[in-house]
């Protein structure tokens, strides 16, 4: 049974560009949450998707947007990248309260 998968593993972008990160949840999970983890910090909640709708959102600007597809996979889009967006982006899937994380996508903004 495959766990949560994310792609790509690493990504390098320049300021002002746009990026799309992808996540496939564990089999049987219908909820996907996205988190941003800066170096040396705990993950910060970005938003959560359930039934293809954004159910809850953290304190992130509108430059951060997402989508969930009918097969429960999800995308995170970040527009107008800033240097401060450099971080590990984590996807977590769940069916009940337990959230299981993927390996993350390391985004570097130059």
């Amino acid at each position, binding site marked *: 049974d495959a766990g*949560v998968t994310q792609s790509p593993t690493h990504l390098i972008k320049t300021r002002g560009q746009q990026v799309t990160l992808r996540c496939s949840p564990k089999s049987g999970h219908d*909820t996907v*949450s996205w*988190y941003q983890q800066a170096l*040396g*910090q*705990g*993950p*910060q*909640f970005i938003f*959560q998707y359930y039934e293809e709708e954004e*159910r*809850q959102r*953290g304190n992130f600007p509108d430059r951060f947007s997402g989508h969930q597809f009918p097969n429960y996979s999800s995308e995170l889009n970040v527009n107008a990248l800033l240097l401060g967006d450099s971080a590990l982006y*984590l996807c*977590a899937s*769940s069916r009940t*309260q*337990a*959230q*299981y*994380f*993927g*390996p*993350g996508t390391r985004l570097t903004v130059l």
Partner: protein
Amino acid sequence: QQQVKQSPQSLIVQKGGISIINCAYENTAFDYFPWYQQFPGKGPALLIAIRPDVSEKKEGRFTISFNKSAKQFSLHIMDSQPGDSATYFCAASRIGNQGGKLIFGQGTELSVKP
């Protein structure tokens, strides 16, 4: 009120010893408290979780102790091994339609010396 405070920031334990990490929260609406283990370059892995209707939960060498009145909870790693060296995060959330948003502590970097 949304914060979860974790201590210590770093911890060095001898092999076979007990590692203890503490967390405190403010929001009494929190009702789910997981602990995660994270190795460098990897995503956090769910270790063990507790709800406030019990005061202790044990899984293998890992035990969560929960004090609802003090709004504190802790992770105990018994017989600590070098392979336990990692960063540990406590978290809290509310279960239910508006639940799921995990609020994480700042993390504890554990080093177990052989």
